[in-house]
């Protein structure tokens, strides 16, 4: 069955802009704040946010890092998730900083749990917030809630939500795949 487009390109860019403004509201000049995108799709979002934030205020200097959680998963040997990790690139110390973890879709919360764990190798942040593009509520396995949400999507477990990026997939949009194929 064809996937359903739940966010089109126009909406997509509005959502990113709104998230950027929300970040500015809370973090003003990003002096003590860093963005960390979770590999692999969270990285697209953190890069885009950096770009949009800089368009809004060219003076801003924002530290953006990439974090891979492969070795921190709690389902090693239990699922067929890829074994090879993506690059972790954090060229700054997060000790005492405010960290905004960035991911594309929040579902069970297990990736974020692993991300919190993986992040500690780079220091003890003073505050951690979570920014997600899509929040699939109703299927949380862990007590994890986002601070900033692009869009809340109601879905059932067998459905699949993917965020597509123009840099990777050719077009900005969010798709929902229904359970029957």
């Amino acid at each position, binding site marked *: 069955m064809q996937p359903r487009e739940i966010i089109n390109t126009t909406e997509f860019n509005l959502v990113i802009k709104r998230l950027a403004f929300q970040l500015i509201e809370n973090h003003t000049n990003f002096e003590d704040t860093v963005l960390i995108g979770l590999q692999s799709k969270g990285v697209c979002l953190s890069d885009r946010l950096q770009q949009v934030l800089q368009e809004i205020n060219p003076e801003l200097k924002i530290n953006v890092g990439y974090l891979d959680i492969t*070795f921190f998963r709690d389902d090693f040997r239990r699922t067929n998730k890829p074994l090879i990790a993506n690059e972790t690139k954090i060229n700054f110390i997060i000790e005492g900083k405010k960290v905004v973890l960035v991911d594309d879709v929040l579902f069970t919360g297990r990736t974020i749990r692993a991300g919190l764990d*993986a992040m500690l*190798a780079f220091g003890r942040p003073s505050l951690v917030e979570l920014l997600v593009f899509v929040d699939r509520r109703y299927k949380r396995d862990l007590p994890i809630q986002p601070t900033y949400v692009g869009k809340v999507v109601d879905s059932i477990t067998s459905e699949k939500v993917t965020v597509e990026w123009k840099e990777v997939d050719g077009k900005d949009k969010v798709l929902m795949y229904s359970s029957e194929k």
Partner: protein
Amino acid sequence: METLSVDHLLGIKDLTKEDINLIFNTADEFKDVINRPIKKVPTLRDITIANLFFENSTRTKLSFELAEKRLSADVINFSSASSSVKKGETLVDTVNNILSMKVDMVVIRHPNPGAHQFLSRHIDAKIVNAGDGAHEHPTQALLDCFSIKERLGEVAGKKVVIVGDVLHSRVALSNIYALQKLGAEVMVCGPATLIPKYIGALGVKVEHNLQRALEWCDVANMLRIQLERQDSKFFPSIREYTMQYGLTMNHLNNLKKEILVMHPGPINRGVEITSEVADSSQSIILNQVENGVAIRMAVLYLLASKINR
């Protein structure tokens, strides 16, 4: 899911080129991990690994143990010198006793070639060969190739000469397999008595003159003279061996190019390699040791992913 084609790491001979590249790609990330302030990941927290060393080792044992601990595995160590092996227990009995303590993986060094192959048929745990007699030492070959790739960008097309005691060396055989699978050209160099008679069948060149070998190569891997394995004399004296096959600064200065110098350790300074060469900028001996931990982490991680729950 991309995964290894083998269930145990018994030798490089069983690996495919894709396996080796998968190990390298994984090791890249682990090298990153071990250079962080916190050098540890929780991946193997529910895995127990036994290091069984039926033969002496310092570097390899430490390197494996560190790799296991960096992956958060539980580790038990065994060395035959202080064990019941001396009381007449068989290999399978020793290992089965250890396995009944619920061990998931076994890293084993044994003086008999093929001990690992034999064990893999009789026990239910993932086996990593840490050296079997003069047969194979797969993780050493992997870390050697990984170090070459790191320095020269690529292994394919490179010319590598293995110098010294090829006859008694498991490092040499594993390196020949690994380098050839990755597309490098291999030459062995040493006195005729220390070059196995039919080594040409493996597709390697043979040279008995060190200077000529060095002129040909991009990388020289200097092997240690294994005095402990030599029950008869293969050359008149250490001094004579050093005169002919010891790598000196003079050799390197006479070359028109810069070559990489490697050594699997432990070094006999002043025998197969002089101190100046070992400590020179062309030597990557200590990089090899660092890469050894990352490579062993990658091997353990990839094999552990195949353990059934």
